[in-house]
């Protein structure tokens, strides 16, 4: 399996990228505002369902079952999709997928393609590849259009332009659509986008989409969306190419019953998406004349082989974990330097890259557990984060620099102390004395060296008291092994 080939993300470490983003107070405000609104809507519509926990469990079981028999369901999908008149292509990596799609577009002699929001397209860097070969991709999702016009990057995979506010969008449209007099009401902006895009749906012959679900027993596909631009792309052009990760298959059409309840509620706080498109192959006189599905592996199979981390692939990309994440609230999505941001991005990205890139991402979480609590398919993200941290540590310990890093030495030393209470008790006594040069007159530590320095940049630490609990017990209580008599006196 080859690695993901991406050129448009810098892949700085998370703490470094986050530091830059934290300084952008406008972005932070936009992110906190938008995630707050979505999260509140989500909580309301989830609370309406008495069987929410059962739906989560059902969703988790369907996804886990499918992943255990993924080969079977993918073959079944291929067979049924082909029978319905679709063409199925298998792409083992990003390069494969880009080549297949470019060839298909070239066969149509198309110079432009319309696109529905697709994160797999971002994952394989499709737009840059098409542009490099003289084909202009046009994003039709309003948020993706904003990103494309602003030469920006998505920061959220349901609401890609979540980090931008209305005033900023108006400025962008004034500049890029040459509309100096555009108003700043939401209707003004959507009107402008509609006018800009409508002509393109009617003229351009090839559409590229992602997909929410592949349906094995019918060979069909399902896409849910809010704007209707997707419906246009799925029905108006002559040729439709859908690029979908192999994990997106569900066994049967009936399984959508669960996900079409949990996905919209989790993603946008809606009971149902305004547009739910399901289709199967091609039909003369109705919709595209040609339909292609590109099934993308690109690092997914090895995840499947990891028993602890396999649940990562249960994800249905609702982004509820982003909206609830206190880390994401502070940084927004760009700090993750990855198509997939937030808690799910923190476990998915390094794995898609064989743990060679994004190695700081498993640490980009306080393990607060909010992501697991909201996940509609019950991915235990904190558990997977810890598992991946374990892999990072093992990788580091295999190098000389890692073995002699302060972190490793500190952790080995702590493990040595914790193995025996007499060592720990001695360390406490040494600490009580040894801390003195660091303790200020007020009894607090206001500066610490090396890797601890970040802590004391914004926080004081109370100095260790002169007597630890174990010392107190040994002095005051050990002579009375049964404890004082209750309610003495």
């Amino acid at each position, binding site marked *: 399996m080859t690695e993901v080939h991406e050129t448009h993300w810098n892949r700085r470490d998370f703490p470094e990228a986050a530091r830059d983003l934290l300084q952008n107070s406008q972005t932070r405000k936009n992110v906190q505002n938008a995630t707050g609104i979505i999260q509140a809507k989500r909580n309301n519509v989830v609370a309406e369902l008495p069987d929410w926990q059962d739906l989560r469990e059902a969703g988790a079981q369907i996804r886990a079952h499918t992943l255990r028999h993924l080969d079977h369901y993918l073959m079944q999908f291929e067979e049924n999709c082909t029978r319905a008149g679709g063409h199925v292509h298998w792409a083992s990596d990003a390069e494969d997928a880009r080549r297949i799609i470019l060839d298909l577009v070239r066969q149509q002699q198309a110079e432009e393609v319309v696109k529905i929001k697709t994160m797999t397209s971002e994952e394989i860097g499709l737009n840059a590849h098409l542009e490099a070969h003289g084909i202009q991709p046009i994003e039709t999702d309003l948020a993706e259009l904003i990103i494309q016009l602003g030469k920006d990057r998505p920061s959220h995979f349901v609401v890609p332009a979540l980090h931008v506010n209305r005033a900023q969008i108006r400025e962008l449209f004034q500049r890029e659509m040459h509309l100096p007099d555009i108003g700043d009401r939401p209707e003004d902006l959507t009107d402008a986008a509609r006018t800009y895009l409508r002509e393109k749906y009617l003229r351009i012959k090839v559409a590229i989409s992602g997909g929410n679900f592949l349906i094995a027993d019918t060979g069909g596909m399902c896409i849910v969306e809010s704007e209707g631009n997707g419906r246009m792309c799925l029905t108006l052009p002559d040729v439709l190419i859908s690029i979908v990760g192999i994990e997106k298959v569900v066994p049967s059409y009936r399984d959508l019953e669960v996900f079409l309840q949990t996905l919209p509620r989790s993603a946008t706080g809606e009971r149902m998406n305004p547009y739910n498109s399901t289709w199967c192959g091609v039909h003369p006189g109705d919709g595209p004349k040609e339909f292609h599905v590109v099934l993308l592996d690109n690092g997914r199979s090895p995840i499947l082989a990891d028993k602890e981390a396999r649940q990562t692939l249960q994800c249905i990309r609702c982004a509820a974990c982003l909206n609830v994440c*206190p*880390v994401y609230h502070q940084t927004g999505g760009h700090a993750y330097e990855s198509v997939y941001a937030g808690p799910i991005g923190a476990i998915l990205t390094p794995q898609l890259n064989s743990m060679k890139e994004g190695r700081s991402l498993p640490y980009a979480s306080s393990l607060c557990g909010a992501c697991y609590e909201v996940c509609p398919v019950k991915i235990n993200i904190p558990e997977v984060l810890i598992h991946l941290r*374990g892999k990072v540590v093992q990788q580091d310990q295999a190098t000389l620099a890692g073995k002699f890093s302060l972190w490793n030495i500190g952790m080995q030393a*702590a493990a040595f102390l914790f193995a025996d209470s007499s060592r720990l008790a001695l360390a406490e006594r040494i600490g009580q004395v040894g801390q003195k040069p660091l303790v200020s007159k007020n009894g607090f530590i206001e500066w610490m060296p090396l890797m601890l320095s970040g802590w004391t940049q914004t926080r004081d630490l109370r100095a260790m008291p002169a007597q630890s609990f174990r010392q*107190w017990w040994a002095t005051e209580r050990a002579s009375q092994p049964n*404890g004082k008599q209750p309610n003495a006196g």
Partner: protein
Amino acid sequence: MRVSLFITCYNDALFPETGKAVVNVLERLGHRIEFRPEQTCCGQMHWNTGYLREAVPVIRHFVRVYQDVEAVVIPSSSCVSMMRDHYIKAAEMDGDAKLVADVEALLPRIYEFSEFLVRKLGVEDVGASYPHRVTYHASCHSVRSLHLGDIPIRLLRQVRDLDLQPIQNAQECCGFGGTFSIKNPDVSSAMLADKVRNVLNTGAEVCTAVDNSCLMHLYGSLHRQRTFVRTAHIAEILASGHVEEQGARA
């Protein structure tokens, strides 16, 4: 009941008053407290930082020290969640079937302090009084791992003269996360700033929780900002004011 106190490594060194308060509260309720000096740490720091192999001997040590107890009480929800959420996994990872069995046998006898009072002993009123305005920080592990729900709040409501103030975004993380606050100090500080603003907005004099780790983090900022808001573990509040209380009753 014979109750064994696992003080936890950081409470032992940094917050001995919390341990004394636990002893005080439980003894008042008529229980015998023992402290096994062989105890060290629960292994959470190693495990959560990815030093999984290094955590196993620490876990094994904990299990060896406590396997014969009637009940272990721990004034730290995150240490208890380490045990409940990860001990079996760690033992399985190590391939030690006996350790798996020992952990399974021990887990039902492990209690977080407030959980022990309310769920095990059925006590909500411990007879404390604490004439202060207090807000309660619901630590992540107490909410999302131990599912303590309103247990700590019920205990605080029974404390005489305590003025309990609700806090905005009660369930959002304070940004500590153990080594997270060291590896990602800037993001952690930003999270902390939001939490501290919410604490200050309550007008409370004291912020309490069932975890001193969060409180150490919060107080780090509260003190740096010279706010005069203090922090106190819930055990210290529940251990307060008994003498006067008994005097008044008599």
